[in-house]
C-alpha cells in the first residue's frame, strides 16, 4: 500500500495546471513527431530538450513534457503506417503489415481507433508494470557496489548492439567511440586534462546534448538532402478515414491479443538493448503463431493491428524500468531521457527512488495522465494528425535543422557548440551509411564518465587489485549475461534482424 500512497503523492504533483498543460503539449507534439516519417521518438525528444531547458522547467515538469512526447510518438507512429504504408518511426514498422491492408479495405478509421485503443492498453499495463517492478529492481540494485555497476554498464553496452545492428563489431566500435568521446575534458579525479588538445572549449567535456541533437536530428536532415526526398509521402493520395469507432465485436476479438502482447512487450522493453521495435516485432510474431488459424494475418486482420501496437507501447513503458531503477537505459529514446535527467543534475538509479521520490512518482502519475490524454487525442481527433502528414519534408526538414541550432545555441550561446553539432551530424550520416548503430555512441558519451568512476572506485577500494571486478557472484553473473548477450546475436541475431529488415523501408534508420 506504500506504493499506492506514493502514487497518490505523485498525482498531487502531476495534477497542477502547469504540468497538465505540459503533458498535453507533449502528447500533441509527440503524436505529430511519431506520425511524420523522418522524425522518430529519439530525435523528437532530442530536439525538444533545449526547449525544456530554456523554458527554465524544473526536473519534474521537464520530464513530464519529454516522457509525454515519448509516449505520444509511440502512438503517432501508427498513423502513417496505416494510412500510407510508411512507418512513422521504426517501432511502427510491424503495424504496416495489417494496418495498411485494413485501410485499403476501407476500414482505415477502424484500424486507427483500434490501434489507438491497443496503444492505450499496452501503455496502461506497462505503466503498472513499471510501478510494480521498478521498486523491486531498486532493492536488487542497492546490493550493487562499484564493481557490479561497472559490470552492469558493460552489460548494457554488450547487449545493446545485439538488436540495433547486424554486425557486433560495429556496435562494439560505436560503444567504444562513445566512451572515448566521454573521456574528453578534465579528469574528475585527478584534475588533469585529457584529449583536449589545448582547446579551452573542450575542458568541460563535450556536452552530450550537442552530440545527441547532431547525431539524431541533423543526420536525418542530411539523409533527406541526399535522397532529395522533399515531397510528402502523402501528397496525391486520398486520405479518407471513415468511421472512427471500432465495432464491439472487433474489440472483443482483440482483447486476448492485447492482454498477451502487453506482457510480452513489457518484458521486451525491460530487457536491455531491446526496446520498442523488438517489442512490436515479437508481439506480432507470437500472435501470428497463436491465433492466426485461417492465415488472415497480413491481409488486414484487426488482431494483426492490435498486437504490434500494444507490444510497442508496452515496451516503451518497460524501457523506463531499467532507466529509472538502474540508471542504465535500454533503448535509444530512454538514453535521451537519461541525458535530460543528467543535465538536470539528477542521477537515476536506486537512490533516485529515495532521494527524489517526487520526480519518480510525479513522472509515473504523469504517464497515466498522458496516456488518457493520448487516447482522447488519438481517437476523435485523429483527423488533425492525418492532415499534418501532408506537410512535406522540404518544409519540415529546414524547420527541424533550425530548431536544433536554436536549441543548442540557447543552451550555451557559443558558435563552437554549433560547429561540434554539425560535426556530429556529418559523423552520424557517415555512420548510418555504414550501418553503425548510433545508440551505443549516445549511451557511451552519457555513461562513460560514471563507468570509469565506478571502475576506479572498485579498484581503489581493493588497493589496486583488478580481480576485484569479478570477485562477487553478483558481478560474475552480470558478466556472464553480458558475454552471452554479446555472443548470442552473432549466432542467432542475423535471422531475427533480417526478418525485421524485410519490412523496413528506407525510412528512419534510427533504432529507438
Amino acid at each position, binding site marked *: 500500500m506504500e506504493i499506492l500512497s506514493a502514487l497518490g503523492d505523485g498525482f498531487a504533483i502531476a495534477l497542477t495546471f502547469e504540468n497538465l498543460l505540459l503533458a498535453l503539449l507533449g502528447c500533441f507534439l509527440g503524436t505529430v513527431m511519431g506520425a511524420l516519417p523522418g522524425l522518430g521518438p529519439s530525435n523528437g525528444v532530442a530536439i525538444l530538450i533545449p526547449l525544456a531547458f530554456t523554458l527554465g522547467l524544473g526536473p519534474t515538469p521537464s520530464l513530464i513534457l519529454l516522457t509525454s512526447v515519448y509516449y505520444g510518438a509511440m502512438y503517432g507512429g501508427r498513423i502513417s503506417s496505416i494510412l500510407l504504408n510508411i512507418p512513422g518511426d521504426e517501432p511502427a514498422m510491424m503495424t504496416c503489415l495489417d494496418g495498411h491492408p485494413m485501410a485499403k479495405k476501407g476500414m482505415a478509421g477502424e484500424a486507427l481507433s483500434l490501434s489507438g485503443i491497443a496503444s492505450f492498453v499496452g501503455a496502461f499495463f506497462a505503466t503498472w508494470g513499471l510501478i510494480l517492478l521498478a521498486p523491486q529492481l531498486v532493492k536488487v540494485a542497492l546490493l550493487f557496489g562499484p564493481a557490479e555497476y561497472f559490470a552492469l554498464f558493460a552489460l548494457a553496452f554488450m547487449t545493446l548492439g545485439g538488436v540495433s545492428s547486424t554486425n557486433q563489431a560495429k556496435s562494439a566500435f560505436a560503444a567504444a567511440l562513445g566512451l572515448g568521446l566521454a573521456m574528453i575534458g578534465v579528469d574528475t579525479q585527478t584534475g*588533469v586534462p585529457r584529449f583536449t588538445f589545448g582547446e579551452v572549449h573542450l575542458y568541460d567535456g563535450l556536452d552530450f546534448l550537442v552530440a545527441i541533437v547532431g547525431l539524431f536530428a541533423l543526420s536525418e536532415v542530411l539523409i533527406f*538532402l541526399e535522397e532529395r526526398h522533399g515531397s510528402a509521402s502523402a501528397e496525391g493520395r486520398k486520405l479518407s478515414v471513415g468511421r472512427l469507432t471500432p465495432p464491439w465485436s472487433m474489440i472483443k476479438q482483440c482483447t486476448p491479443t492485447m492482454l498477451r502482447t502487453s506482457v510480452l512487450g513489457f518484458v521486451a522493453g525491460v530487457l536491455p538493448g531491446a526496446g520498442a521495435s523488438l517489442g512490436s516485432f515479437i508481439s506480432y510474431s507470437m500472435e501470428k503463431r497463436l491465433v492466426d488459424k485461417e492465415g488472415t494475418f497480413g491481409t488486414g486482420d484487426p488482431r494483426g493491428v492490435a498486437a504490434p501496437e500494444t507490444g510497442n507501447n508496452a515496451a516503451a513503458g518497460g524501457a523506463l524500468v531499467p532507466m529509472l531503477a538502474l540508471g542504465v537505459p535500454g533503448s535509444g529514446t530512454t538514453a535521451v531521457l537519461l541525458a535530460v535527467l543528467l543535465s538536470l543534475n539528477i542521477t537515476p538509479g536506486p537512490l533516485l527512488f529515495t532521494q527524489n521520490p517526487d520526480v519518480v512518482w510525479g513522472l509515473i502519475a504523469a504517464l497515466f495522465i498522458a496516456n488518457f490524454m493520448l487516447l482522447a487525442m488519438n481517437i476523435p481527433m485523429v483527423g488533425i494528425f492525418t492532415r499534418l502528414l501532408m506537410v512535406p519534408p522540404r518544409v519540415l526538414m*529546414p524547420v527541424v535543422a*533550425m530548431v536544433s*541550432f*536554436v536549441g543548442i545555441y540557447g543552451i550555451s550561446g557559443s558558435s563552437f557548440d554549433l560547429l561540434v553539432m554539425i560535426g556530429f551530424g556529418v559523423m552520424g550520416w557517415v555512420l548510418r551509411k555504414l550501418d553503425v548503430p548510433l545508440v551505443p555512441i549516445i549511451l557511451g558519451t552519457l555513461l562513460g564518465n560514471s563507468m570509469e568512476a565506478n571502475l*576506479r572506485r572498485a579498484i581503489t577500494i581493493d588497493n589496486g587489485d583488478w580481480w576485484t571486478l569479478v570477485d562477487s557472484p553478483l558481478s560474475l553473473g552480470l558478466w556472464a549475461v553480458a558475454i552471452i548477450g554479446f555472443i548470442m546475436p552473432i549466432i542467432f541475431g542475423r535471422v531475427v534482424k533480417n526478418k525485421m529488415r524485410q519490412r523496413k523501408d528506407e525510412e528512419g534508420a534510427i533504432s529507438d
Partner: protein
Amino acid sequence: MSDRIFGVFGVLLAIGYAMSALAIEESFLSDAVGPKAFPLIIAAILGISSAVIAIKPDPEPHWPDIGRFVEIAAAVVVMVLYAEFLPIIGFVFATALAATYLAWRLGSTIIGSVATGVGTSVGIYVIFHLVLGLSLARGPLGF
C-alpha cells in the same frame, strides 16, 4: 571496400587515441588506476572492433553519386557559415537565409523556399524569443 577503409581508419583512430592517452600527464595525486587506464581499454576495444570490421566487411552500402555528395558538402558548408555568422548578422537574417537554402535544395520552388525560410525564422523568433523568452543571437539591428 567501404568497410575495409572504415576499419583501417578505425585502427588508426585507436592508435592515435592510445598515443594521446599515453601522453596524459599523470598528476602526483593519483588513485590506484590513474587517468590513463580506462582510455587505453577503450582504445583496445576500438582497435579490435575496427580490425574485425576491416577483415570481415559487410556488403557495400549504397553511396550516393558525386552530385549528391556535393549536395551534402554544400549543405554542411552552409551550416558552418550559419554557425559562424549567427552572432554577427543576428538570428533572424541568418536563420532565414539558411532555412531558405535548405528548403530550396530539398526541392521547393524559389518562392516556396523564401516563404519557408522567412516563415521558419520569424516563427522561431516569435515563439522562442518573444513568447518563451529564450535569448537568441542579436545582430546589429537588435534581432
